[in-house]
Structure formats: C-alpha cells, structure tokens
C-alpha cells in the first residue's frame, strides 16, 4: 500500500466510525437528537460515595421534610419535573415499587426542579404518587447534588451516605435490585 492509501485509511476509518456513532446515538434519541436537560437513557453513573448533603424541602402538602429525619432508612432521591417525558414514563413504576416496600425502612423523596407548584400537584395526582414530593423552588438541592438533567436518582444508604447515582428512567427490576442491595448492605 502506498503512503497515501495508508494515511487515507488512517483518517477515513476513525472518522467514519465517529460519524457513524454520532448518527446512531442521534437516531436513538427519538424525536430529534436533542434532549438537553432531559436524561433519556438509563445508566448507572460511577460516583465516589460520600455523605449526603442535608436539605429541607417544602412538600406539596405543605409539610417540611429534612433529610436528617430519614436517617436509618434507605432513601431514593428522585429529581424530576412534570414537563419531562421520561419522568412521566417512569412515574407509575416508581409509585408501584414504592408500594412494595411499605413497612420496610425505605423512603422515596421526589425533588421537583424547574417546575411550577400547580403542575407538580397535577402530576402527582395523575400518577398516584404517594411518597413525599416537593418543588425545590430555589434549585439549591439540585445544585448541591450536582444534577445535570432529569430524571436523575440518588440512592442514600441507611447511614446517610450517597451510594449510587442513576441517570435517566429506571425499570422496576433495577429499582428493586438497587434498593435490595442497599437494604442488605447495612441491616439493622
């Protein structure tokens, strides 16, 4: 092969692969390759476990919830918004799995960001969400947890340590697996 052919191949193959990958990824994001602010794909994100930042959240029913109240329980912190399609997609799943863990030391907390109170109430009613949810009006919880898009979930173990982070909607099986893992990790 001549020098020219070699260089041609060395440039063309990676470029073609990259363009192909980008096109494929764009096709995957149905409805146009967009989706800024909305996480569409499931995925565990590797994080360094660390103590969860405390916060207080005014719930939709007017009560105030602080994270410290939930010490001793496995907490699923779910960042969502009523206008976000993937959040809607998984809302029923979350509500269902939450029901399964009734009576166990597990709590779900929905943190609604970039949203309006009345839309949040309508959403919660529509999907039968029974776990505590509230609007993070100041956006401070989202900033503290470094939320980049929604839905995004943080799993906090019974000692108040953030163990897992998931981006995008989760299936019921996945939820059960992670919750089970955290429950078994620190049984009391």
């Amino acid at each position, binding site marked *: 092969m001549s020098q020219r052919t070699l260089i041609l191949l060395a440039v063309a193959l990676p470029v073609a692969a990259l*363009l192909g990958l980008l096109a494929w990824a764009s096709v995957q994001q149905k409805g146009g390759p967009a989706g800024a602010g909305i996480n569409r794909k499931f995925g565990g994100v590797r994080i360094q476990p660390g103590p969860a930042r405390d916060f207080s959240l005014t719930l939709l029913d007017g009560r105030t919830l602080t994270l410290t109240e939930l010490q001793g329980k496995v907490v699923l912190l779910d960042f969502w918004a009523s206008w976000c399609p993937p959040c809607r997609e998984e809302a029923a799943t979350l509500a269902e799995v939450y029901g399964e863990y009734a009576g166990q030391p597990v709590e779900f907390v929905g943190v609604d960001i*970039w949203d309006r109170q009345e839309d949040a109430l309508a959403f919660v009613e529509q999907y039968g969400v029974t776990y505590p949810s509230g609007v993070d009006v100041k956006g401070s919880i989202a900033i503290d947890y470094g939320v980049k898009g929604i839905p995004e979930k943080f799993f906090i173990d019974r000692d108040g340590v953030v163990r897992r982070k998931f981006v995008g909607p989760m299936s019921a099986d996945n939820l059960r697996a992670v919750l089970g893992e955290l429950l078994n990790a620190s049984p009391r």
Partner: protein
Amino acid sequence: MAEMGAIALWISLALSSYALLGSVLGQVRHSPPLVESARRATFLLPLVLLVATLSLVGAFISRDFSVAYVARHSSLAMPKIYTWVAFYAGNEGSLLFIAMVLAAMAALALWLAPAKVRDTLPWTTAALMLVLTFFLAVTAVMANPFAQLPLVPPDGDGINPLLTHVGMFFHPPALMTGLVAIAIPTSFAIGSMIGGKTRDEWADAGRVWGLVAWVLLACGLLLGSWWAYTILGWGGFWFWDPVENAALMPWLALTAFIHSIMVQKRRSMFRMWNIVLINVAFGLALYGMFMNRGGPVPSVHSFGASTLGWVFLLFLGVGVVVPFGIFFWRFPLLKSDRNLDSMLSREASFLMNNLLLLSIAFVTLWGTVYPLISRLFKGQEITVARPYYDQVNGPLMLALVFLMGVGPLLPWRRASLRGLRERLLLPVAASVTVLALLAVLGVREGYALLGFGLCALVAASILQECWRPTRVRRRATGEGYATAFLRLAWSNRPRYGGYLVHLAVVMMALGVLGGSFFHLQRDVLLAPGQSTELGNYRLLYLSTEEVQYSDRTEYVSTVEVYRNDRLLETLHPWRVSYPAAGMASTRAAIRSTPVEDLYVVPSENQAGGTVVMRILINPLVWWMWVAGPVVVMGTLVALWPQRQAVPSRQPLSVPPAAASINPARPRDVREAG
C-alpha cells in the same frame, strides 16, 4: 423593525450564495469580472448582516414581544444591559451572531490577504462562503430569530439567570467567534490546495488567522472557567463537561497548528502535517458546534431541545470529508522540501509538542464519546468523569510543560548535546532548587512536586532566553538593559510573544496545581454570630439580608474574615432565587491574593438567618485569571505585523547551533520561533 431584520437575513443568504457560486464559476470559466464581483459581495455581507443584527438588538431594546425569540429570552424586568447576552442566549440569535462575525472576519481576511495567496483567493472565498451560507441558511430556514408570534404576549419569559454575569458578556461570544474563526485558516489551506499552490504560500495567512482563532478560544475557555468559579458555587473551575471539552479540543489542535506552522514558514517542512492539523481543528470545531446544538450527550451547556442536531451532524460530516478529500487529491503535491535533520532539534520538539497536544485532544474526545460507545456495546451509558481525564491527561500535560521548557532552547536543524547541556544548566538548577525548597517545606504530593519543578524549569529557561541575548546586545550596542531587551523583543515579535504566552501557561499551571492538590474545603451550618475556622482563617458570620425584587429574592450574607484575630476583610457572598424561573444562582465572595483564594459561598439559606456555607481555600488560583491578559498580550505581540520588505526566510549560512544563541547578529534578530 423585525421585518427589516428578516429581509436583511434573506438578502445576506442570497449574497453569500452568489459569492460562493461566483467564485467557483468565475474560477472555472476564467472570468475575472465574475470573481471580482463575488469578492465584492463578500465585503457587502457584513454590512447587510449588521442591519439584521441591529434590528434584533432593536427588537430587544424596544421589548418587541411579537418576535418569538425576544419573548423567549427577555422580559420587562430584564435590565437593558443584558440585551447583549440575551441576543445569543438561544439557538436563533447565536447562529445570527456566528454568521455576523464570520462574515466580518471573512471580509477582513480576504481584504488583508497577502499577495502570495492572491491566485488562490477565489477558492478560499468559495470555502468561506460555503461555511457562511450554511449558517445563514440554517438561521433563515430552521431557526429564524425574527419569527413572529401569532399573539403578542404582555411580557417575555425573561433571561436565564445563570447568564446574568459579566463573564457571560464575553465567554460565549469569544468561544463562538473562536470556533468559527478556524474556518479562515482552513479556507486558506483549502484554497491553496485546490489552486495547486501547495508550497508555503498560505502559511502566513494561516498562521495569523490561526493565532486569532487560538487567542479567542483561549479567552473564551478562561472566561468560562472564571464564570464557573465565581457563579456556579462549586469552587472549581474546570469540570470536563462534554461541551467544555468540545471547545478545548479544537483549541488543542490549534495550539499544535500555530507551533508547527512556524516550522513550515521557516523551514518549508511539515506541509502535509499542517494541513492535517488545521483540518482536524476545523473538524473538532464543527464537532463542538454539533454537541452544543443537539448533540446526543447531555450537558449543562446545551442550547435546549432543538432539531438542529441532524443538520449540524451533516455539516460535521461534510466539513471533515471535503477538506480531507481535497487533501488526498492533492497529496502528491504536498511533499516537503526537507526531512528532519535530527530528533534533537527545534523542529523535532515541535513535532513532539504536536503529538502530545493531539494525544490530549484524542483522550478528551474518547472521554466525550465513551458514554455512547458504552451504550452501543454494553447497553448502559457510563459517563466518564474527572478521574479519567486527570489520570490520563495529567501526565501528558506535564510532559507538554517539560517540552515547553526544553523546546525553545533547541536550535533549528540540529542541536549539539554540549550546547544543550550548557543551556539547560540554569533551568535545571532552578528546577532542582524549587523542588528542594518545596520538599523542605513539607510538600509530599509527587505530582504536584513534579509540576512545580517543571514550572520552574520553564520560567527559568524563558528568563535565560531573555537575559542572554539582551546581554549580548547590550555589549554590542551599548544600550541599557531595558532598551536592549525591548528592542530585541520587538525585532523578533513571534518568538518573544510566544515566550510571554508560555509564561502565562506557567501561571495557569500554578493555578491548576494549587487548586487541584492543595485546596481545603468545609461545609458548615452557621447561625448569625457563629464562627468557623479553616486554614489560618476564622470566619465570623454576622447576618443575611433578604432583598425582594420583582423577579427575584436576593440573600446577601455578611461574613468577617479574621487571621490571628485581626480583621482582614468583610465578605458579602450572596444567593439569588428566581421563583418564576424556578432557579437559583449564587455569587461566591472571594478574597483573592496571589498566595491563595478564600472562597465563601452560601449554598442554602434557612429560616432565622441560618445559612449553609461552603468555604474553600484555593491556593494559587489567582494566577490563572491573571494569565488571561498575559495570553492576550503575548498573542498581540506575536501577531503584530512584521515589515514585509525583508524576505521571511533566509538561507542558513551560520552554524545552526549558534542560530538562536546570538540574536544580536543581524540574521538572528529577525528569527522567528
């Protein structure tokens, strides 16, 4: 008002299409009048686009909410000064902005083009107009900023509060301008290849516009870091976010290019390599734009949902395939005159620098597409985070700093080991001294020690390179030290401008090392009157004042900073919440000194004036921000036009080892590099 803008936008699209077709047809059919008329059209374009730009600005100022874009990005409450920011806050306006600056720079580049490239200028014009036509067509057809709303809303949605920061006045425009400016050197390269003038005709114009794009991107990146540091309240300045990376990668490729183009200018080597580099830089810039406007990787920077992704992906494909296609077509013409004389030479050190820079760019590219690759092969999206970049890019960057210290000491063509040893003596001694001093002071971080040692090496080698020729010149001419140095530097601006930029890079390295390895952090809950300690500081939290505005509530805290019970400063970090936008932003209060920054940011305001504060001590970060102006100054010095009367390349008649030791000699005074 808006109608005028819309009309101007369509006219400019027609003009740029005309200039594109006119240049190509005129060149193919050998019709000079057609070529000339196309050239004139390119000069008219910035004026027409200025009309479009001004009419959008006018719509913002007059609060014309019948224009959808104005309604979406401003409101009655928005101070008028933010019009500048609102202008490019969304896809539509930012595309118009890009078209405007590209048209202006293209006209300037074509007007100032040196005589050497005149023959191939029509092809360059065609390439530039192809890029401009793309942006204008997308703006006019798919993202028209002048689109009207059927009903005029009483008020607009307002501006994204995160953008209301002085950094936002410069960071996005500098980056957008820098990215699109890469089209100019690329077009000169393409023009010279199509026109068959593949010796070094385009090297001067390519270097100048490469430097312009480079300095704009550098400013954009630094300002972005500064913005993140002061407003996002995370206490860091670089996050390896996909879009940050997207702007960093073309900058890295450009950094390689502005070095290796010097080799082509002086030694007629690296002809193919330079074209590859500028094509890569252009491709990476298009990749960055694609990521920014609907790319498949979520990022805090994205412009929000848009269907433009496909168009930009297509453009990315065209923008990579066409320049490389032309390159392979002209491959046989691009042979260099010479080969490397020795691996121990200035040329070889530039080549090494290029390879390191491209490696960093590649590592970064791999990190940004890795989530997609993992999704493809494992079905699970794994985001690559900071540790990957730090571990892989960290050593590469240190190697680059090392090269920055040694490279300038090497003469062109071939270095003698003895000469090199002599010139390395002082820098190495300085480096060892700094290492020993730090070790005695108790610094045990291996990486940091290495980093600081290398910084000392570079600084010492630059000072030596300023000092030695100055002394020689002083002896020869009898001028004072200052005069001798200034005249010397002025007579060889590319080289000394480069040194200034290298010094700025050392300053940035200090900031990165200090901030990464030696920062202290504490999050505390403070009630009024309580105090906390961090490092040598004691912070006394006094109170928080709550101020209500029509669109936001500001919480301004007062914190007194003491060291050894002496009041140093009173800080006012604040936090704003925008209920309408459901957003909050913070503004850290920073007590900044060359030694360290004390960084205080409230992350939460609770009832009763209690506040959660994040306190950081970031050593040496001050130097990062000071480096910015130094980079600009150095680049300006390097760019300042040299008189053209003297031929730019000269035969090497003196022994190469002496080539850059005695710049007082007539031939060396003009040496660039």
